[in-house]
């Protein structure tokens, strides 16, 4: 028998997302199509993951030009690259030890990039000061989240650390929390109100949780994932006040801050609101804000560039965070470069500005148009409803399934929305995510679609989905 049979019990608690069986099947179908096997569709479309490049959107030229020049500095002597690309690359290389992107950087990132990020944050927040030493550059926001969670989680039984997390949830966050031995304390977002955060629900969740664990943190996602809500300033204030009253550490996942589609909505950072609330909140509430180069206009998921900014943390604790983080060496330099460009993009007058601006605008327009189109189309279907997609890169429509469909799923031993997704994949070659991955209110069913995809792809997606949906509803009704 294996030495490893008795492994850490925390690990067996992680719920592997259902995604796996769908993506495996999608890979099989893709392979079969390549072999020339007959299917009712010519190619597979996979919009289940929050990955813009996989979805067919192109990287931003300036980003890739700078990265290629940093990788192969001989390009700096060619006429191939615009002058601002070259000067940015030269500047970045000067910051690197040995002028190579192959060197380690300081633990928390290249100081110049920490600095760019602090200025970016300050500009974004209408001048609220941001200090580079409170910014840790990480391998995606996921590493930052885990770093923070590691500070908390310990204890068993009633001392087990709990973190409040929204439902519908981010499966990755819940997995990370569980793998570290923490308790997920779910609070439901209110679908009928457009997925708002409701204080009464948060209070209820907290009171219930206190009976069996030690809640220490509150995780919020704004703009929402997968639900796409954008919190109003008032909502953010309420949450901050709640966290202060209940002594909860605030974890604000703001990776979709660049993706707001609703012109009446505006992203306001937790940090700015906290600052504007003034003392005692502004100088006591502990906050960690997360951002990433994986989302927003860049969509550079594979480069693994993210950061966390700490606000009002105890300085001794900050020392421990630094030491802990130092054991992981540093974030991949390519990811750091992507963050630098995110924080400090080409400006008007720079050689690349026009082209850059156009690419970014097109990206934003694509997302805005997609958000609109998805909402309209899905809301026109009987048996589907979609709350306004104010921000983020997903649509999360609700399926109003006939009783027979639910029964069928139960028979098969799968969640009804997963059954729907599996059939959708087989019949239409369209891969979307099931709501059951995200925890959701009991007896509700949802789908998750990533809208960061070219408009014509989305058009095709909606055609396939509509056709399938009508057929499915007809099949299981009556």
């Amino acid at each position, binding site marked *: 028998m294996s*030495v*490893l*049979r008795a*492994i*850490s*019990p925390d*690990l*067996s608690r992680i719920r*592997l997302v259902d995604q796996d069986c769908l993506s495996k099947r999608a890979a099989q179908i893709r392979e079969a199509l390549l072999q020339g096997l007959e299917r009712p569709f010519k190619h597979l479309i996979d919009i289940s*993951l929050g*990955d813009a*490049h*996989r979805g*067919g959107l192109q*990287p931003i030229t300036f980003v*890739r030009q700078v*990265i*290629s020049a940093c*990788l*192969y500095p001989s*390009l700096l002597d*060619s006429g*191939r690259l615009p002058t601002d690309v070259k000067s940015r690359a030269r500047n970045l290389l000067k910051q690197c*030890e*040995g002028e*190579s992107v*192959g*060197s*380690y950087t300081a633990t928390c990132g290249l100081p110049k990039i920490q600095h760019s990020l602090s200025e970016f944050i300050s500009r974004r927040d209408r001048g609220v000061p941001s200090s580079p030493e409170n910014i840790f550059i990480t391998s995606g926001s*996921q*590493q930052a989240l885990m770093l923070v969670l590691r*500070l*908390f989680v310990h204890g068993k039984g009633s001392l087990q650390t709990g973190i409040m997390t929204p439902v519908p949830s981010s499966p990755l966050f819940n*997995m990370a929390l569980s*793998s570290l031995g923490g308790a997920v304390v779910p609070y439901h977002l209110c679908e009928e109100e457009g997925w708002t955060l409701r204080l009464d629900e948060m209070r209820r969740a907290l*009171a219930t949780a*206190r009976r069996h664990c030690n809640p220490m943190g509150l995780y919020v996602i704004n703009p929402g994932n997968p639900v796409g809500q954008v919190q109003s300033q008032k909502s953010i204030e309420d949450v901050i006040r709640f966290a*202060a*009253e209940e002594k909860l*550490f605030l974890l604000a996942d703001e990776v979709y801050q660049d993706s707001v589609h609703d012109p009446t909505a505006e992203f306001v950072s937790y940090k700015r609101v906290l600052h504007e609330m003034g003392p*005692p909140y502004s100088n*006591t509430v*502990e906050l960690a804000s997360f951002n990433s180069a994986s989302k927003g206009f860049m969509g550079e*998921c*594979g*480069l*693994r560039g993210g950061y966390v900014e700490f606000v009002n*943390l*105890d300085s001794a*604790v900050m020392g*421990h965070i630094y*030491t*802990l983080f130092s*054991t*992981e*060496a*540093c974030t*991949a330099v*390519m*990811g750091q470069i992507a963050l630098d460009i995110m924080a400090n993009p080409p400006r008007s007058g720079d050689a690349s500005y026009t082209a850059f601006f156009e690419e970014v605008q097109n990206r934003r327009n694509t997302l805005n148009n997609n958000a609109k189109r998805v909402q309209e189309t899905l809301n026109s279907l009987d048996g589907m409803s979609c709350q306004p997609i104010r921000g983020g890169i997903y649509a999360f429509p609700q399926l109003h399934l006939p009783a027979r469909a639910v029964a069928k799923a139960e028979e098969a031993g799968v969640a009804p929305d997963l059954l729907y997704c599996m059939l959708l994949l087989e019949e239409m070659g369209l891969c979307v995510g099931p709501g059951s991955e995200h925890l959701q209110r009991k007896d509700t069913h949802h789908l998750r679609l990533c809208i960061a995809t070219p408009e014509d792809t989305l058009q095709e997606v909606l055609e396939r989905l509509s056709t399938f949906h009508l057929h499915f509803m007809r099949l299981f009704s009556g």
Partner: protein
Amino acid sequence: VDSVTGEESVQRMMAEKVLTVDTMNSCVKKVEYAVRGPIVLRAVQIEKELKEGVQKPFSEVIKANIGDAHAMGQQPITFFRQVLAMCSYPELLDDDRFPEDAKGRARRILQGCGGQSIGAYSASQGIECVRQDVARYVERRDGGVPSDPDNIYLTTGASDGIVTMLKLLVAGEGRSRTGVMISIPQYPLYSAALAELGAVQVNYFLNEERCWSLDVSELRRALADARRHCNPRALCIINPGNPTGQVQSRQCIEDVIRFAAKERLFLMADEVYQDNVYAEGCEFHSFKKVLFEMGPEFSSTVELASFHSTSKCYMGECGFRGGYMEVVNMDPEVKAQLTKLVSVRLCPPVPGQALMDLVVNPPQPGEPSYSTFIRERKATLSSLAERARLTEQILNTVPGIACNPVQGAMYSFPRVTLPARAIREAEERGQAPDMFYCMKLLEETGICLVPGSGFGQRDGTFHFRMTILPPTDKLKILLSKVKDFHQRFIQQYS
């Protein structure tokens, strides 16, 4: 507890923070990591002071504390950077400056990426074609011993894989708490990870008198001791060694495997320096290869994880965070848990995965880039070998410094004999004596080394770890300054 009234809540807010040293995870407080620790922070501070024009007895800080070859001027392998540049900016695929074989590689890697972009997430276990290439590399390296791509996990540097495996292993409470055997001296990632996981660190001492060799009798002693208070389940070995630089003999590796088999220990073989072998008569033997050559009694039972990285060897590409681990004879249910665990961190950086692909699948004879590649690799490795020899030689001319042969890896770990007065003064300051020594060295010469106390050493002995990475001229200057400093130090404290 229901929500409180306004006034009470304000009072509470003015009181203790949520996250304090008392409320935080107590295991995290025990974590130390000397390689990037206090002495390095002081070195960075001194660099700032120099920039501001503060007068010092030296004009630059030399960071010989960290195994970062590019930082010390080592050049990247041209082919690798060409392919990676084209992967990042595929428009370059039509550029005449790049050879055809490089273009072919770039195209192949991009084919394996979602949306043909290195900006897409890869599968958590890593890009499939890269894992296949890694498996083929391992087979070639190990004389045909089969390697299944499904047992290959691409990782964010080797550290990610090592920590993941340790997470998987650590279980139990009290006397049944998992113990993990690690060499003393060791690379402090291991001690840091074990401290955070609340596992029991079981130390086995390498034999300094015999070139840092590993004696099975010492393994037995350590294990027997450990069994009294914990449940030892794993044995970690770093070969070639860090910080000690020894390259274990084939016999030693067999003995370790036999020991692990008998005592039912999971073997973790950290082999990131596998190409960094300098001394004559020394050769890298992969644990996996030796395991399989020992026949089915061992090869079908011993559970092993081997680790490799793009940060060391002749590549030195630390900033890419590329790595992989191969698991051997892992229980399928445990492997399922491992696969689940790695998915929590999404995926390793794709440029690092692409780089790993090139490392395991370099230019072949007959290909346009082959001769340049071979020339560059040879030059780098032989330069390292020369510096390893030089370091050992010069340090051994200093009375009071004794340096074992640097058979491999990137470091020397000489023993320093410190006068009793110096030891006392250090203790009065609450400093480890070798930290006291290294801090003084830093302040007087600008040379940043890591004290042996950061790696572990026998009680009453003192060491420092110095990289062999500065370019030869600088290294000579560095070594002569260390020599001068040591002699001054001895005089001062005698």
